[in-house]
């Protein structure tokens, strides 16, 4: 199969299952030897799909070759992304794209957003890569128009796509079992069963268990300017244990004029919260339990060549318990339950050849219950309307969208506070343009976008007992981006594929919701709309695929990000040295980057990756007391695939943080040193 024919397949609109089957042959042949066509498949898909501005994505073999356990680990390889990692298998991992703040990220799981109306955070450390086929990152929004209104509603989005079943000729069943284990007493068995029931219906059932003590050694030391070691302490990270269980069932179907899928997901976990390591306190005892359930479905129908529609729906129920049994602190045993109901329809019309229009309407309902004193039990209704259009004229592609958001919150009366009802209504635009400057050459394209959007204050921001502030306004972001992509494929020679991408951007965050001390002692905070951040950045990516002597191949990928993310909150706090005005905001490095290489010889693969995060400060007063050292890790892994007549075995061994660097991503949260993982996978 040539890349060209894939383009054609992708060009025809969303025949999900047939598309998957067609892709299968490529991926399958790629799996053993032909990693190059796999690579091409990936890049081609990224460049020539319906999206005007391509995303960054990791999928298939590339994704497998990175030493990553969770989605969060894999996202370290994207440019413009900072991971907040509190360390260990069970530690919270959230991502911040282009420094706008973790709350501005939308995370979409198989096409539908994962919500958290309570605190707006999605812990990407909880999504194991076991059942994930592709992770894609979009700045602004997915630059295609046929999608639900909610997809227009974030400053940046991550799309996690789980594995779609694919069957070889004459096969109706795939079984896959794997076992991973290693440092931190990690054990992670998983099982997937895929079945084709008829030409039109197939299903997948996947389950996995993760258990780990989360124990690892860490070291803090102080070296005097004279070079003498003042103190040097090694300890074991405690209370970082986790036990989690995930089961996921999906059904995929296609009809002559459409596709549908439905999925149910359940996640159950208990974990320790390892906490900050401070003087005289080397372990903590806080615990957290989570139970997340959701069921969702999506149906796409092509009514005619000019009209198609999509219907999506979801119900989610999340339960969380937080326990602080530490007798040296305030005893807390709080339970939270969230419900979410979501419905969406999107209608796509081709008005004229090259000119399309999409109208989407979404409704969402959220509730939060908490076992907190004086809690107000908020309920939120959200109505979203998105009108988008896409226009193509010769080498120019244009997309514009307008999103209308209407939100109504209502609270039940607490003990001392009055019931609150508040409404927010806003219209926000986005414009995406891409242009091919060279005639008859699709290798080079320029792109630009502008997007204005906001995030709503979360239920915690608004209503959390004592801290919340019901008069909060949405936190807005505005993004401007200009960039180019160049890529070229060759069918002969050493280089088979080269891709260069660079983007420059400027973002403004206004009305940033910040916790402000409220006065009269005892750590009393209140959420206020006072923050302001300006972010100017550059991202560059270079990628090359090389092949030689028939069975050797090398894939190299380089990423670099520069960001100047300055605090513009308080113009009076402008001391050139210690003032926060103009200071780089917390935990954003000026320079960061990664290098990943994957060398393949027949069934043997060797992967190396290097991640670098430059110097940072942990607050926007950029003084030496707040300085955080750069950190960088080298990871190495090897895989071997053994193909037998009826089954295939894959063995992998990886060593992460090869040089045992001791570092903190978050101040006082030590990260693991050198650690190991081994895995075996059986497919039949």
């Amino acid at each position, binding site marked *: 199969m040539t890349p060209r024919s894939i383009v054609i397949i992708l060009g025809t609109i969303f025949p999900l299952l047939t598309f998957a089957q067609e892709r299968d042959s490529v991926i399958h042949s790629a799996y053993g030897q032909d990693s190059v066509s796999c690579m091409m498949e990936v890049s081609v898909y990224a460049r020539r799909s319906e999206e005007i501005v391509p995303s960054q994505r990791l999928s298939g073999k590339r994704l497998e070759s990175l030493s990553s356990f969770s989605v969060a680990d894999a996202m370290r390889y994207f440019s413009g992304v900072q991971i907040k990692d509190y360390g260990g298998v069970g530690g919270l991992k959230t991502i911040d794209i282009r420094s706008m703040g973790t709350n501005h990220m939308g995370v979409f799981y198989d096409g539908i957003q994962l919500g958290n109306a309570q605190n707006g955070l999605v812990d990407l450390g909880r999504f194991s890569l076991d059942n994930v086929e592709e992770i894609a990152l979009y700045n602004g929004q997915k630059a295609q128009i046929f999608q639900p209104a909610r997809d227009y509603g974030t400053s940046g989005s991550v799309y996690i796509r789980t594995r779609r079943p694919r069957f070889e000729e004459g096969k109706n069943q795939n079984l896959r079992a794997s076992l991973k284990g290693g440092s931190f007493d990690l054990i992670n068995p998983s099982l997937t069963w895929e079945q084709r029931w008829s030409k039109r219906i197939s299903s997948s059932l996947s389950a996995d268990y993760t258990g780990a003590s989360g124990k690892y050694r860490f070291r*803090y030391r*102080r070296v*005097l*300017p004279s070079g003498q070691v*003042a*103190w040097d*302490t090694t300890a074991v990270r405690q209370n970082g244990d986790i036990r989690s269980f995930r089961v996921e069932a999906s059904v995929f179907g296609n009809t002559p004029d459409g596709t549908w899928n439905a999925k149910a997901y359940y996640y159950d976990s208990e974990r320790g919260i390892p*906490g*900050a*390591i*401070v*003087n*005289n*306190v080397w372990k903590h005892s806080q615990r957290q339990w989570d139970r997340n359930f959701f069921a969702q479905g999506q149906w796409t129908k092509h009514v005619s060549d000019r009209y198609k529609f999509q219907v999506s729906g979801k119900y989610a129920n999340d339960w969380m318990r937080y326990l602080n049994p530490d*007798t*040296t*602190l*305030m*005893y807390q*045993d709080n339970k939270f339950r969230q419900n979410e109901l979501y419905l969406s329809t999107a209608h796509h019309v081709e008005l004229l050849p090259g000119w399309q229009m999409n109208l989407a309407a979404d409704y969402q309902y959220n509730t939060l219950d908490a076992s907190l*004193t*004086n809690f107000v039990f908020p309920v939120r209704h959200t109505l979203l309307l998105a009108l988008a259009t896409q226009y193509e004229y010769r080498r120019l592609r244009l997309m514009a969208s307008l999103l209308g958001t209407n939100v109504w919150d209502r609270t039940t009366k607490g*003990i*001392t*506070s009055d019931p609150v009802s508040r409404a927010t209504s806003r219209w926000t635009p986005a414009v995406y343009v891409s242009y091919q400057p060279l005639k008859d050459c699709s290798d080079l394209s320029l792109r630009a976008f502008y997007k204005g959007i906001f995030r709503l204050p979360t239920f915690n921001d608004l209503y959390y007992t*004592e801290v919340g502030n019901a*008069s909060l306004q949405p936190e807005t972001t505005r993004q401007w981006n200009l960039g180019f992509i160049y890529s070229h494929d060759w069918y002969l020679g050493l280089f088979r594929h080269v891709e260069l991408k660079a983007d420059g951007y400027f973002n403004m965050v206004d009305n940033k919701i910040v916790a*402000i*001390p*409220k*006065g*009269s*002692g*005892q*750590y*009393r905070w*209140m959420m206020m709309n006072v923050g302001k951040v300006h972010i100017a950045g550059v991202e560059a990516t270079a990628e090359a695929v090389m092949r030689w002597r028939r069975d050797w191949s090398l894939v190299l990928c380089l990423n670099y990000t520069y960001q100047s993310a300055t605090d513009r909150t308080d113009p*009076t*706090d402008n*001391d050139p040295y*210690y003032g*926060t005005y103009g200071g780089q905001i917390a935990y954003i490095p000026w320079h960061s980057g990664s290098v990943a290489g994957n060398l393949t010889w027949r069934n043997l693969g060797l992967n190396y990756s290097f991640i670098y995060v430059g110097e940072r400060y*942990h*607050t*926007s*007063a950029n*003084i030496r*007391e707040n300085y955080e050292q750069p950190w960088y890790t080298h990871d190495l892994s090897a895989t071997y695939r053994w193909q037998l007549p009826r089954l295939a075995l894959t063995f992998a061994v990886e060593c992460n943080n090869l040089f045992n660097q001791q570092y903190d991503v978050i*101040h*006082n949260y030590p990260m693991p040193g050198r650690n190991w993982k081994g895995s075996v996978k059986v497919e039949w």
Partner: protein
Amino acid sequence: MWSSEEEEVGDTRTDSILGFYLLNEGNMGSNKCTMDFYDYTTGTYIRNIYGNANPSAVKELGDVGNDLRIYGNRMWAVINCSNKIEVMEARTARRVGQVNLANCRYIAFHEGYAYVTSYAGPVQINPDYEQKGMVVKIDTATLEKVDTCIVGFQPDRLDIANGKIFVANSGGYMFPNYENTVSVVDIGTFREEGRIPVAVNLHHLMADSDGQLWVSSRGDYYGNTSALFCITDPAGTPQVRRITTQAGTDLVAENMTLRGDSLYVIGTEFSYATMQNHTNYGIVNVRTRKVLTTNFITDGTDASIMEPYGIAVHPHTGEILIGDARTHVNPGTLFCFSPEGLLLWKVRTGDIPAHFAFLYER
């Protein structure tokens, strides 16, 4: 975090008060409790002295400083979230030892013993989880804990007068069922003898030279605002008076200090009614129990103070020191005012400048 910085800020002078230490609390979890020193003999402000004085102290001074006192030749720093009291030589800030005490809050001294409040008394399930606070008696010579006395829930500042220890119980973890009493502990038997009801969520407590107690309430953050109270004859037949301005307004008492007959009361409180902070820099005459002023800063500098948090008044000169905690996560500012309320100098501090101890020549 480790090395200190010097800055010239004031004039040089000769006095039996050589300087003062300032304990910066540091935000919780940051491990950024630091200590600064101002040297009156040279007019030099030295930030972050602990790491230099104690290079081998693992993870430095600790997490959230909550009180600082000099007693004899030693300085005692109560480090709340590091669950310890750091004992240092007063002249050098060199470490002598530490006393481990969970969730320790405030310290007072009496005849060779230190008395420290702690939120972390014994846990009882009764039928709900209950954990009363306590006062722990520590031998200042051996640094041994010699006795404990259970008081109310979440006890804060304490003071000693007329053979009694008076403890302000906050009940801060019991929201909305705050404590509202001062515990009276006999210093001889070291047992709680009684309670004086005052107001919800008590915080500061100071005894003046007449044996009156000055007690602040944080309020409950809803209907009851922060307020200041005076208890006359606390060991006999106590009488509680609410101290207000002539207009009947309460004083926000985030922190307070006593010099002579003057009680300096500073604080800021968020008002849901106006959605703004209400701030005062008050002076109360402890004899007349009258509020003399609600803003002793006379040159307008108060406009540039975000959150007055720490206060001390120079015992000899009457100069007023105010620590501005600002955003709590970034460096604070220390303001020094003349007794007339005119700004003399200001300097950058560590995070949340809060507690002062004057160092005397011996």
